[in-house]
């Protein structure tokens, strides 16, 4: 199967090399950081966590949400999502691998990374994060790979896949909960101690991952001949729309409770997010983009067009990334009363972050290519 990754159109190769170059930039930035520490980042006493940690809640929610597509596709006999199951498994694997990379990038003592696995402290939610991510990575990668293999050979999926998915369910669902609990241990931070944080991450993760899968499937269909099926795509768009609506509702509930109760701490936290804050623009953009894309995806006529569905899916994913990724962490760590010193990521930090994302996109591209060739090979027989 793997040989299919190296063959392809010229545009496929150019795209892959461009992504590879960005990933190499990440390797350079990472080397720079290993040598000199965080002096090359925008982090400091006023921004304890930066771009790296800001990716974690979003990626955890994407990993968990991949289950929403993977479980029906593997455990149910007849599911419209079955053709997308391997894609969902790969998405979950890549999200957890990226999380692990960002956790590693964010460590001041990178050579002690094994301590995270060898000396956990079970009472701390944070200590469950890395081991569970590793478990989920292994399970989802194995499931996805075995499914593509079965598809290529035209045989039924192996029996062990069902067991692997069943173990992956609690592990995957725990990921956004742990991400939220990692923030919940910060007393006095109203944005982070909300009980709605974990459900918000889960629901918005389903919306974002459905949106991203729409983009991936439609692109692979147009360029590589990947076949997801019209019905699968339309159902996926509906999943994105309803999850997007759920996510907006939870955001509204949180704001409504804060403002009706006039809870000073909570309204202050909201104003750090939407009001007097360097991140207000991103927060408002995220809210409006989420509302817009959800609204359009809710219209059946629009979501039947695969191009429109893919574009609005991508916009929805971007909105969720801004909300549960960037602004949640960066605005959440601003302390009330203190001067909201804006955090600006430095160039090596940006290089590392975009490089990890580029590496992920590269792997997705290659996996989609392999899956599409497996499908084509099957049809050719």
């Amino acid at each position, binding site marked *: 199967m793997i040989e299919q990754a190296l063959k392809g159109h010229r545009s496929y190769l150019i795209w892959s090399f461009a992504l590879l170059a960005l990933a190499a930039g990440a390797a350079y930035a990472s080397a720079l950081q290993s040598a000199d520490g965080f002096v090359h980042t925008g982090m400091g006493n006023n921004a304890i966590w930066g771009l790296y940690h800001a990716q974690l809640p979003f990626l955890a929610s994407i990993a968990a949400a991949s289950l929403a597509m993977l479980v029906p596709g593997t455990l149910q006999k007849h599911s419209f999502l079955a053709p997308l199951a391997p894609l969902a498994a790969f998405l979950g694997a890549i999200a957890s691998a990226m999380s692990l990379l960002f956790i590693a990038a964010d*460590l*001041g003592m990178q050579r002690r*990374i094994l*301590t995270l696995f060898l000396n*956990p402290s079970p009472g701390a939610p944070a200590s469950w994060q890395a081991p569970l991510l590793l478990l989920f990575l292994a399970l989802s990668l194995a499931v996805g790979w075995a499914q593509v293999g079965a598809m290529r050979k035209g045989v039924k999926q192996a029996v062990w896949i069902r067991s692997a998915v069943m173990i992956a369910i609690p592990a995957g669902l725990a990921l956004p909960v742990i991400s939220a609990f990692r923030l919940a241990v*910060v007393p006095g931070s109203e944005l982070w101690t909300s009980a709605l944080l974990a459900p918000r991450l889960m629901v918005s993760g389903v919306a974002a991952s459905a949106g991203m899968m729409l983009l991936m499937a439609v692109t692979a269909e147009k360029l590589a001949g990947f076949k997801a099926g019209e019905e699968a795509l339309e159902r996926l768009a509906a999943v994105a729309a309803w999850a997007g609506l759920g996510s907006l509702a939870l955001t509204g509930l949180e704001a409504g409770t804060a403002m009706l109760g006039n809870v000073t701490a909570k309204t202050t936290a909201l104003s750090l997010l939407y009001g007097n804050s360097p991140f207000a623009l991103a927060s408002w953009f995220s809210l409006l983009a989420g509302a817009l894309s959800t609204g359009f995806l809710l219209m059946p006529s629009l979501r039947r067009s695969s191009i429109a569905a893919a574009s609005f899916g991508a916009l929805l994913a971007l909105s969720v990334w801004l909300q549960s990724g960037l602004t949640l962490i960066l605005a959440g760590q601003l302390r009330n009363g203190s001067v909201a010193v804006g955090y600006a990521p430095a160039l090596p930090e940006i290089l590392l972050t975009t490089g990890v994302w580029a590496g992920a996109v590269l792997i997705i591209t290659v996996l989609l290519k392999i899956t599409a060739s497996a499908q084509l090979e099957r049809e050719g027989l």
Partner: protein
Amino acid sequence: MMHNDRREFIRKAGIGMLAGMGAASGILTGGGFERTTSAAWAAVPGEHGRRWGMLIDTRRCREGCTLCIESCHHTHNVPAVKSPDETVEWMHKEDGRELLGSLCSSTAALPALCNHCVEPSCARACPTDSIFRRTDGIVAIDYHRCVGCRSCMQSCPYGEVSFNWSDPRASLKNPSLDYPTRQRGVVEKCNFCSDRLVRGKKPSCVEACPEGAISFGNLNDPSSEIRKLLESSETLQRKPELGTRPSVFYII
């Protein structure tokens, strides 16, 4: 039939996971508030064991004097980093209102340090148990186990944990030989002079204060000097509403 089984499975998996997470993450920790008036201290049910605590009499704290901080930072090789965004501090002076809230009538700069909380949120945030509460109440850091994720720093509501953004040894002019230096990439904070306590000495800030404004002792011992001071004076703690139960008290 198939459908019901699946639903049942998902339900059971969910309940099991929630129960496991709840038990493991220590959501159900003990009660929070601690009254600090004299009457309340007398009513505290006796806790067993030792709980080191500190009482700072701010009436005796001189304006502009930083002898306690200098002594502390020298004793523990705390680097004097110049960049304001990268400072490392075990002890510092801060505006009284900022420190203790509106109950504090003074806006003079008061000494502040790690509160050695009974319910330390930093310890609940640490993924590797590198920051932990000892049986004598001191919240300590294992510099050799710390991975540098800064979760403790983020979760300390008092901002008393510092991270070594740059190499601390480069900022040490006259290192003390009695305490190790740290490396870049780990966190550090006040250790209540646990290194001096084992040698039978008092904390260095207590010794350094020319006015004797800082008292130190076992909060769980009703006959200790600090306990008598607590019972005879009105004292304040930093952010008691957060339920962290700080062991550092202030007389205003």
